[in-house]
């Protein structure tokens, strides 16, 4: 369970987050949605202790993120930021292998190697394993980064717009994989999504944010509603049930 209580954040005089409190239960896929500048990524960085907490309190599995040793947190929570930038002269298999660092802190064990191979397989990267990262396309690089995050083998996985640069096939593949590890392995996935239909189709819960505050949260069906979506994004859209899945018709 991720508990966030009274978290505010100000950067350079402007308020990014304003007294945010919410609870993400253990297990399942929770989507964070909202317009640009709503504070989704900032909230995610605070949970993942990438930024120091200014006020309020955040715990993951009961561990306060600001005082728990970083290594201990790295074994229960993995984070993938938007466009983290990658160094040159690094092969895909080496990058993915870094996901195992919190566990071995040095030399890879046989178990680590198996997990790395499985992650490469999972994200369709086996053929690219020996390519250098800087020779990959944006989407391939994004997949390598997601594979690295998975490789960390944590109970909590935080992803900031992981669908960036991914084509339809790989975006769907990633969302289905997230669904599966949540269902079969009981992992907790917290994901920032821009495509509202990905949230509608794959998430168990949706947290909607606007202007640094949580506007609505709850079961996907309770949040993906025309009135709520209009209050967040500022225009009206239809929500239909197409072949058993909630679908937002935002082009209409």
């Amino acid at each position, binding site marked *: 369970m991720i508990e966030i209580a009274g978290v505010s954040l100000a950067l350079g005089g402007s308020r990014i987050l304003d007294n945010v409190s919410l609870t993400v239960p253990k297990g399942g896929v929770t989507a964070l949605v909202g317009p640009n500048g709503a504070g989704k990524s900032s909230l995610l960085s605070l949970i993942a*202790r990438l930024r120091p907490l200014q006020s309020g309190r955040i715990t993951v599995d009961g561990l306060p993120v600001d005082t728990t040793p*970083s*290594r201990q947190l*790295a074994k229960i929570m993995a*984070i*993938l930021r938007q466009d983290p930038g990658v160094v040159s002269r690094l092969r895909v298999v080496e990058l993915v292998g*870094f996901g195992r*660092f*919190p566990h071995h802190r040095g030399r890879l064990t046989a178990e680590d190697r198996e997990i790395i191979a499985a992650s490469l397989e999972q994200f369709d990267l*086996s053929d690219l394993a020996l390519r250098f990262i800087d020779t990959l396309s944006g989407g391939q690089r994004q997949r390598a980064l997601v594979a690295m995050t998975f490789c960390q083998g944590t109970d909590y996985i935080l992803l900031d717009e992981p669908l960036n640069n991914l084509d339809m096939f790989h975006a769907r593949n990633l969302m289905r994989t997230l669904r599966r590890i949540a269902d079969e392995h009981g992992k907790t996935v917290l994901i920032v999504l821009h495509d509202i239909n990905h949230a509608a189709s794959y998430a168990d819960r949706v947290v909607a944010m606007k202007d640094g505050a949580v506007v609505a949260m709850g079961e996907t069906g309770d949040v993906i509603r025309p009135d709520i979506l209009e209050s967040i994004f500022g225009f009206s859209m239809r929500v239909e049930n197409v072949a058993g899945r909630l679908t937002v018709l935002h082009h209409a």
Partner: protein
Amino acid sequence: MTEVAMQRGLVRHEGRLATMAAAAVVVGAAFMTIGLRGDLAFVIELRALRLAAMVLVGVAVAVSTVVFQTVCANRIITPSIMGLDSLYVFCQTALVFSLSGFGFAGIDPRLHFLGNFTVMTSLALALFLPMLRRRFDLTLMLLTGVVLGVLFRSLTTLLARLLDPNDFAVLQGAVFASFNTVEPGLLLLAGVITVAGVAIAWRARHVLDVLALGTDTAIGLGVAWRGTAAGLLVLVAALVSASTALVGPMAFLGLLVVSLTERIVGTNRHAILLPAAAFTAIIVLVGGQTILQHALGGEGSLGIVVEFAGGIVFLAILFAGGRR
């Protein structure tokens, strides 16, 4: 299949490393043996002292530059470009100014060294840690380095003008890069610090690999970033003060050596990069000195040649687009 190919890649890197080690040994042997004449015991002792100083300086500069660049996550800035060297010169000038040349010359070299080390370390932490924490970008970092360098140099000039000529001569002796006047007493102390620093850097090689992925990724992978970065900056300051205390400031040596090494070994893994950079530095320094002494008549200054070549490499990297 991937396993085999990875192994092959590793073997290739390690092969190059072995070649570089061998080249460093050959260069060292050449330095020691070419053109021996006169009182053998005296010449050999003199050369051994210089060789030891060059090896120590080379290793200290190479390792400190690699570590500093990894912590700062870019491959252009080096400790000296960020003004650490001019800080050293300023410290010496301030000391001569306050103690007079006589008092300065009378300080126990080891005490002097430890004092320098403390000042450099605390200032390096006070200056760089806030910059790193706020994620300055490359342009801002370089600009800060240039401004700091100018600040310390101007302060140095100001104090130097107020010195009397005798004190000024003492200062000149203390701050110019030279391999010809190595203080044997300092050699041991600098050697101990360099060996200890290199051992710590080697132990941290896996953490350095992770730090090179960027601050966010490193924290996500469980590196306690602030403590680690602070510790590594202290390490860099220690190595820089060891090498500057021995021979004086060498502004571009680190940049020259590390960018050469990266191109030769073709990997960013610190298990390869750290020793390879150290070997390159030894080859550049000792080889350069040998050529200067025996092929070019002996009177050139290695410091100037290295600065010249290093400056050109710096410009080349900037023009090539400032790889990060």
